[in-house]
């Protein structure tokens, strides 16, 4: 089989797995940089636009829920942001994931590179835009009433699990959308539905107890409860919520990678 030259034979299709992904890390970098550059080309505020949307959303929800509905929650803006920012991350990545393979069809049909790089670059692109928003949360954290709890140290780990979960969903959707081109419209509707059945702007225990079992099926509920536990309450939720979140992540990533690896090559013919 193929041998390694003084340069790795990078476009060698027989090279597979993690090694070839690492070899293409500069492609990922160039790709994400291109997407960001193109997106904010000529925009006076540039990168800052990625902040304006979440800030307006937060402002509106704070107004509606603490002024109009008079929520009795202390530090409601922090309560809201802890859930909403992570929801935004999820919905932006999954909302865009349907289009990734189709949008890059010209490339995928003309050059061989590890196909996994297409969804990975879409995820990284959205994470980079999102970093500004989460950085702002941490800067404002003490002013919003946040305390430096020791549990904050597990935040990066939980975030990684959450991203892995989202990535798995992305893989599944990007493949399915090639087969069913109207999937993205369905995804938009499902995302809208999920937003309101996830306790982001309201409290979990406001859900009537007999419906709570139904809501608890959603992995987003688990993750929002964990993120809010870390950033707002200063304690992790019960172990079975943690276990469910891990289980969802493992399931999503396993199914996603399986589906993608199984179908990515033959999808080229259907793009």
């Amino acid at each position, binding site marked *: 089989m193929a041998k390694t030259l003084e340069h790795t034979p990078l476009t*060698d299709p027989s090279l597979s797995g993690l090694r070839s992904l690492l070899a293409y890390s500069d492609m990922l970098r*160039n790709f994400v940089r291109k997407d960001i550059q193109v997106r904010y*080309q000529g925009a006076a505020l540039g990168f800052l636009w990625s902040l304006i949307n979440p800030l307006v959303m937060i402002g509106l929800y704070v107004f509606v829920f603490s002024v109009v509905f008079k929520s009795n929650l202390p530090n409601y803006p922090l309560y809201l942001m802890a859930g909403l920012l992570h929801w935004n991350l999820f919905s932006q990545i999954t909302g865009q994931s349907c289009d990734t393979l189709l949008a890059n069809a010209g490339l995928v049909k003309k050059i061989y590179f590890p196909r996994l790089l297409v969804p990975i670059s879409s995820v990284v692109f959205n994470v980079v835009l999102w970093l500004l928003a989460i950085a702002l949360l941490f800067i404002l954290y003490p002013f919003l009433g946040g305390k430096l709890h020791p549990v904050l140290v597990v935040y990066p780990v939980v975030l990684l699990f959450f991203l892995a979960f989202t990535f798995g969903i992305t893989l599944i959707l990007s493949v399915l959308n090639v087969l069913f081109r109207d999937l993205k419209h369905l995804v938009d509707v499902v995302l809208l539905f999920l937003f309101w059945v996830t306790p982001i702007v309201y409290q979990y225990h406001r859900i009537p107890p007999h419906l709570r079992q139904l809501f608890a099926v959603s992995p987003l509920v688990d993750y929002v409860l964990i993120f809010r536990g870390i950033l707002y309450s200063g304690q992790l939720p019960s172990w079975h919520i943690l276990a469910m979140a891990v289980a969802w992540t493992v399931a999503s990533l396993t199914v996603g990678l399986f589906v993608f690896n199984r179908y990515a090559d033959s999808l080229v013919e259907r793009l």
Partner: protein
Amino acid sequence: MRSLPDEVVQVEHVSKEFILHHNRVDSLKGKLVGLFKDRWRTRHEHFHALSDVSFTVRRGEAIGLMGRNGSGKSTLLQVIAGILKPTSGRVITRGRVAPLIELGVGFHPELTGEENVYLNASLYGFRNKDVRGRFDDIVEFSELAHFIDTPVKNYSSGMYMRLAFAIAVHLEPDILLADEILAVGDAAFQEKCHDKIASLRRNGMSIVLVSHNEQQVRDFCNSFVRLDGGRVVETGIFRTKTAHTR
């Protein structure tokens, strides 16, 4: 010199079958209606684009894939490039493969020439630091030094092709897969392309050139494979090796 086995491309009994979707429906609604209504259902037909194709390309050899439109030559090139997986058989390639199936794939019109050089090269698996070392050569070859920091949307089609070609030949491929493209630009620039390819071949680069133009194949290649209906119908060697004696 690199120590590589002499056979850089081995195509072994490759067959490629496409499923043609007549009346293809790619929507959920269509699929659902198709369960009940015949008219909405997709009809599938198996189409053999390649049947039992075998040949070998040796180091430094240039082979022309000839045949009429639809004979399977471009499909074969995509299989060698790893873009399509063969239905049966296998392809072994040794070394760096540069598919020139279309020039300027992955160029983004809003990015400058320089940014596109790095982007395009990285699509072929190049590290940015390796491209940096070749960047000046690429720009010099393309004769675009004055325009390299302007967006490629402002380039003429000739400039665009020159940059794309310059990138491809400076990635020092071991195997160049070309679909009709081996020279771009005006007569003088084409001459330069030919010289560059000749010098790369002297250093051991192999070429697989797809063309329906017999003269082009004669100019560049020392052997050929003729396809018809996805089968190899003729193979041969050209007596006069024009490419070497230029």
